[in-house]
Every structure is written in structure tokens, then in C-alpha cells.
């Protein structure tokens, strides 16, 4: 495989990275890198570094690599070579400028989507290696501004969007009132101890997309679910700290979420249509806290819809007519195996489902995941130009007749929106919840 060929074409300016870099010394860099490698990574990093034979089979898996005409700078193993290998090889003796590049690569040129791990004959998990780099970047204080700000929001409010303590229950009560115009006895039961289910969402819902809470409430109501939402912290299941490498904060967020479920004495946590939150609750956060498995059954919205449709708890009045295509979010498909359930839901509610290719666990990431979209405007084009293949894939589905793109993940939604817009693909993007709400039988 060729050596990395080019540096960043344009030098982005990001206050988080730039100010962070200006404060670094080589001693500091070395001590942080060695402390992370020696004290936090253990055998996994070592094994991966020693096992990789540089065969490059993982390259074809990565949408950044494919979208940049097979530029090795963007290949999974190329990203590793430009970051953690060099750090290991040089025992941490790297320059601030090297750290700047490492921050840009790990935080903005890898979605931690794990597609490449499926192509590596040894199952090397590049996403894990990029997470180690992000951890080092966090410890060095060089995390990009926007996602660092999101982590700060998490730290203060335990939610992603600086939603204050009063704004959350107030929003739920407002949505409840709105929904009562449609279904007079509908409730969003707050703090109902002993309910079967705690429904948790990510903070963009109360902040910008409150109609999603409205729709979820209608679905819960019609399905006759015994559910509740907490009125205090712990309602937000999102986790950008997981993506900035601030593991201590990730643990704090997940503890808050799980203990809220424990306090409410629910049996299950049903999560809204979000991928990364699922990864955080189901895989990363719980483990950091010492739980091999989450203390409560975690049900992603896809599985929840699957179950209530299958059990006949909601009925479809008339299937959705416009042909849809389905984007498989990495975190719930590669990470949670929900692809067939997603198809069951899609076929149950839509007349015409057109598969994009590749699909299921081989689907291309939206380019937003892994916190990349949360690095904000400075890196917007990185993710859009880095995912031309996604545009081609979507265009393929569109050519076969798809008019609507269903993406059961918030980040995917936003990321795909940018791609659809930039490449002028012309697809409407929806959540499953949008369509279910539209086509289900509701009390007259």
C-alpha cells in the first residue's frame, strides 16, 4: 500500500483545535500519549498494532477512501498510520502539528462506523483505534470546538443541547397539550413510577423537533403502552462525550440515564430513533461503568415499532404510498443487528420498499456519525465531500424509483440531509415515526 499521499488541502480553522495546539509542549504530548497507551489501552491496542499486515483490504470499506478516489490518506489503515502507529512507534515523541493532523483525522475523517472491521481478515477494529486517538486528543485539550461545546452541555445539563431543567418538562407538557387537540385523553406521563417503559430521547427532540415527541406519544397511546418519561435529568440518552474521548463524562451521563430508569422502577428503556445513543447505552457507557450488559433491557425504536406492529398493538390504516428506501444506521445495524426488524417495519407501513446497495450491515455510513457532524460548520464539507459514494448509492435507489429516504437515526438524518442537498439528489428524509404516525389507525 502506498504511503499517505497528501495533507489536508485546505487548512481549517477551528478554535478548539487551534487554541489547544497553541498550548501544547512536546513534553506534555509525550506524557499524555504514553499515559493513555500504558494505563488505558491494554492488550487490545498492542494486538491490533502487531497483527495488522498492512494489506489494505480495509480500504475499500471506507466511504472517505472511496469518495476521495482511493486516496490512501483516507484509508482506514492510512488513518491509523498517520495517528496512533506513529505515536506508538515514536513513544509519544510527536509534534503539536502532528497532533493537529491527528485531531482532524480522528475527529472528522472517521465516523467510527466499523464498516472496515468487517473487511479486515483479522477483524481489526479501526474505530477502536480512532477512539484511542480521540482519547489522546481529549486529554491534550485539542478537541474541535463544536463537539467540545456539546460535551460541555452534557457536563452541565446531562443533555446535548443545553436544555435547562424547566425547559424539558415544560416542552413535554406543551406537546401533551398539542396532542390532546387530536386525542383528548392522551397523556405524556411524567415521573410515573412503576411504568413498564421509560422512553428516552436525545436533546434535539425537545429543542428543535418536538413533533417527534408528539408522534411518539400518539404511538404509545394508541398501542396502550404503560410508559413514562422522567421530568428530571437522565431523560437524554445521547452521548457526545463518548465521541470526544471524555470517558469519565460518558460514564456520568450513562449512570444518570440508568439510575433514572432504576428510580422510576421501569422494566425497559425504549429509545427514540437514534444510533449513537444506542451505542452509548448498549455498549460503551455501560461497560465503562462496570456493567457487562446494560442493567435494563434496551429497546431501540426500530425494535419497539417492530414489536407493537407484530403484536397488532397498532394497526396500519393505509400503507404509505411514495416508494421509500431504507438507510441502515451503523450503530443499530452493525452494532445492534436490527436490519431485518427495520425491514419488517418498512414493509409493514410502506407499499414499496426499494433497497439501496449495499445495504444491511454493509451499508455505507451517512458520514455524520461518530460525532463528525457535531464538529460543526468547519468540517461540514469534510463529511460531505468525504461521502460521495453515499450520494451515488442514494442516487441508485432514486433511479429505481425511491422518493423518500427513511433513516431511523438522528445523526444519519441530518447527515443525509446535507448529502441529499449538496448532491441534489432530491429525496425526502423521514423517520419511521413520521410515517407510522401518518399511516396508523388513530382514535377518530
Amino acid at each position, binding site marked *: 500500500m502506498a504511503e499517505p499521499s497528501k495533507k489536508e488541502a485546505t487548512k481549517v480553522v477551528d*478554535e*478548539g483545535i487551534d*487554541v489547544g495546539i497553541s498550548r501544547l509542549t512536546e513534553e506534555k504530548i509525550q506524557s499524555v500519549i504514553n499515559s493513555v497507551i500504558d*494505563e*488505558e489501552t491494554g492488550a487490545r491496542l498492542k494486538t491490533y498494532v502487531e497483527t495488522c499486515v498492512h494489506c489494505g483490504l480495509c480500504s475499500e470499506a471506507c466511504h472517505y477512501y472511496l469518495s476521495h478516489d482511493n486516496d490512501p490518506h483516507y484509508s482506514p489503515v492510512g488513518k491509523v498510520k498517520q495517528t496512533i502507529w506513529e505515536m506508538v512507534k515514536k513513544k509519544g515523541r510527536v509534534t503539536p502539528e502532528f497532533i493537529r493532523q491527528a485531531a482532524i483525522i480522528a475527529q472528522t475523517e472517521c465516523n467510527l462506523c466499523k464498516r472496515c472491521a468487517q473487511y479486515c481478515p483479522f477483524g481489526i477494529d479501526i474505530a477502536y483505534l480512532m477512539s484511542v486517538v480521540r482519547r489522546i486528543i*481529549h*486529554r491534550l*485539550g485539542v478537541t474541535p*470546538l*463544536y463537539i*467540545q*461545546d456539546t460535551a*460541555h*452541555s452534557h*457536563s*452541565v*445539563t446531562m443533555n446535548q443541547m*443545553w436544555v*435547562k*431543567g*424547566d425547559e424539558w*418538562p*415544560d416542552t413535554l*407538557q406543551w406537546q401533551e*397539550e398539542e396532542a*390532546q387537540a387530536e386525542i*383528548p*385523553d392522551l*397523556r405524556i*406521563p*411524567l*415521573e*410515573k413510577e*412503576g411504568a413498564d417503559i421509560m422512553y428516552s430521547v436525545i436533546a434535539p427532540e425537545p429543542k428543535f423537533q418536538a413533533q417527534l415527541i408528539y408522534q411518539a406519544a400518539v404511538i404509545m397511546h394508541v398501542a396502550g403502552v404503560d410508559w413514562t418519561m422522567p*421530568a*428530571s*435529568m437522565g431523560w437524554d440518552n445521547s452521548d457526545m462525550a463518548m465521541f470526544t474521548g*471524555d470517558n*469519565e463524562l460518558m*460514564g*456520568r451521563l450513562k*449512570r444518570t440515564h440508568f439510575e433514572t430508569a*432504576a428510580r422510576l*422502577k421501569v*422494566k425497559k428503556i425504549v429509545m427514540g430513533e437514534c444510533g449513537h445513543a444506542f451505542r452509548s447505552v448498549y455498549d460503551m457507557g455501560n461497560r465503562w*461503568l*462496570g*456493567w*457487562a*450488559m446494560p*442493567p*435494563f*433491557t434496551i429497546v431501540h425504536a426500530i425494535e419497539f415499532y417492530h414489536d407493537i406492529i407484530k403484536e397488532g398493538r397498532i394497526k396500519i390504516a393505509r400503507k404509505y404510498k411514495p416508494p421509500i428506501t431504507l438507510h441502515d444506521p451503523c450503530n443499530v445495524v452493525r452494532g445492534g443487528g436490527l436490519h431485518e426488524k427495520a425491514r419488517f417495519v418498512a414493509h409493514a407501513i410502506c407499499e414499496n420498499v426499494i433497497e439501496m446497495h449495499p445495504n444491511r450491515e454493509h451499508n455505507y455510513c451517512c458520514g455524520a456519525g461518530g460525532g463528525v457532524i457535531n464538529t460543526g460548520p468547519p468540517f461540514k464539507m469534510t463529511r460531505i465531500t468525504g461521502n460521495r459514494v453515499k450520494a451515488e448509492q442514494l442516487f441508485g435507489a432514486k433511479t429505481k424509483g425511491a422518493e423518500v429516504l427513511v433513516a431511523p437515526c438522528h445523526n444519519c438524518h441530518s447527515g443525509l440531509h446535507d448529502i441529499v442537498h449538496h448532491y441534489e439528489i432530491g429525496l425526502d428524509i423521514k423517520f419511521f415515526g413520521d410515517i407510522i404516525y401518518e399511516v396508523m389507525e388513530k382514535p377518530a
Partner: protein
Amino acid sequence: MVDSRSWDWDTGERHVSLDSLKKKYRWVEEPYASPDGETVAAIVNVDEGEFTVCVNGEAWGETVFDKIWHLRFSPDGRLTALVSELGEWTMAVDGAAWENKFGYIWEPRFSTDGTAIAAAVQQDMRYAMVLNGKPWEQTYANMTYFAMSPDGRHTAGAVQVEDADSGEIHKFQKGSFTAALDGQPWDMRFVNVWNLALSPDGAHLAAEVRLNLYDYTIAVDGVPWESRYATVWEPVFNPVTGTVVAPVREKGMWRLVENGKSLWDRRFVQIWHQMFSHDGSRLAAIVAPKYGRWTVAVDGEPWPATFTQLVTDATFSPDGQCIAALAKDEETFRVVVDGIPWSDTWDMAWQPVFSPDGKDVAAKVEKKNHYTYTVNNRVWSGSCDAAWEPVFSPDGTHLMLRTVEAGNYVRRVVPVSDIVG
């Protein structure tokens, strides 16, 4: 503590019809039973945007509110709820709203004896605590964690004292938060302040603090401990000596420290919810001795029995000699007393309750939506649609069981011997 000696402890049962309410109102929300079991109340919807509370079948005072939520009995038996009228919010106690109204009110707290009630309030986008209807004089741009002293005389909050707009990450990292006791902020600023604890007399305030993005410690009365940790969890005060104990993380493992000095030698994969016995002589915590295994450690020694999913709701007996908790394996809960799990498994269980002499333990439990009680590992024969935690009589001979059965609220006093044989 609430004095339950004056309550009716004669064996027998009383019923209040709940089903009949359903005909009277558009909807009836989940009921709440008073601590003495004499009253059952539920928020009811009278008409569009008109709510009241139905108390033993009677409407709650004259006022109909635009919205009512968070109906709860205080430990002394007063009925409280968060209510809104003409777009303003406040607390209503036994049907009467506090005079002071706010933009919003949430997270009510009660003192141990129930005589004091506090909550967080927002007015004109400024935040404060309100205690018995009276808000702090100082207000803050944000307030995130709240606490009330056990005696109900003091309140505290984690408050924002410097403006740091979203996006101003470096300003934020210089510290914009502190803690305030009765409205008075500490001098020092922190990046974050979480989980406040007030000493039993309310004179001292401790909190988790983050000094920069990486260094965590505990601050007491505004002064951080000298030691720094990778992270920390909630501090608690020793009820007798007043020292502060908190779990801290170093090199990937947790231990307990007291006033910044090591307390337990043993390190754990996780430690939290540490608690003192009433006399302060014993200290227990929920721990993970190994990855994926949970139990209770008492004075540093974990119980031999461990559980996979969750250990929660640990509680000391009044004399501090015993500990009861709930443990979850797979999908089922069990009551565990002093490390010995009881035989029956449940879909859900509630915090175990000790008799005053500490000899008997009772817990509300549920399986397949049927609620019952388990006492000393014997299951009560009743099966209910809803239930509240059991209450022991002051002499420990009787249990008050508050349940919902066949559309009726039932208050029942039974001899403990009827259940345990």
C-alpha cells in the same frame, strides 16, 4: 422521622372506590396513597384544560387548575402538587397554592419529617430554590443540581455565576459554576458542580467538582480537597462526625476516601451509593468487585454473593446491624438481606423496609403486573393491581398494606405473623 403512633393500627381493612371516579371525570391519573393510608388521591381531568385532585372521592378545594402534575404526599401526610394557573406555576399544598408564583417549578423535595417542602423554580429565565413558598433572594442564570438538608431548614443548588455562552469553550473551561447554600454562592468557580450533599445540621455543603476538564475532587464549603482524581461520585456526610466520604476513581479503579484520605483499602471496579448507618458507625456501598458483578460492600468487605445486572435500594436497619437491598439477575429481582438472596424472584421490587427493631424485612414486589408483598422471604397471599410500600407499626407487630384491588383502594392492617407464620 414521622411519628406513626397515632395512626390506626387495628387489624382490618377499609375501602375507597376508585372506579366510580372514572365515570365522573374525563380521565383519572395514577393514584397516590398517604403515608398513614387514610387518604388516596389522584389528579383528574374535569374538562379541557381543567384539572383538580380527587381526594377520597372529593374534589381538592375550590380551585380548578389549568394543569397539575407531580402529585405526592409529603412524609407528614400533606398532599402536594405542582400546579399552573393563567400561565404561572407554583406548589399547591392540600389544595391551596403558595402565594408566590413562578415561570416554572419542578423537582420538589421534602424534609425527613415532611414539614418542609422545597423545589427548583424559574422566573424570567433566572433560577433559584424555593423553600416553603419563599424563593432565594439571589437568582442565577442556571441551576442544575438541588439539595435540601434532612431537617428541611436549608437548600442548596449548583448555580451558574459567570456567563459563558454556548460555543465559548475556553471561557467555560475557566469555570462558570459554583454551589450556593440558601442562595449564597461559594467564592470559587468550577468547570462543573454536581451532586450536592448537606450535612445533617445543614451548616455544611459538599459537592463533586471538576476543576478543569480532567481533575475532579470534592469541595466542602467552597474549598476543594487537595487530592485530585480521574473522577468522583456523590459525597455524603458522616451523620455523627461530619466527615465527608466519596468514591473516587484512579487508574481505572474506584475506592472510598474520607476528607481526601483513603478510607477503604480495597479497590473496586465500581463504588457508589455509599451510606452510613444512623449512628455513623458503619458504612456500606454498592460495588462491583469484578467487571459485570455487583453486590454490597460493608465497611470495605463485599458480600460473597454477587449479581449480574444491578444492585439497588440498599438500606440499613434502624440499629445499623443489617442491610437489605435489591438484586437483579437477568430480568428478575430478588430481595437480599445481609448477602443472602431470598428465594422468590420478581419482575420488579421496591426498597425493602425494616421493622423498628430490625428483625423483620418487608418489600413490595411485582410479577406479571400483579403486586404483592414479601416479608422475611414469605409471600403474602394477596394479589393486587397496585400497591405502595409496606409500613410497620411502631411496635413492629403489624403491617399496613396499601393496595388497589378490583377498582378499590384498600388500606389493610395485618399482623406480621399472618404472613410470616
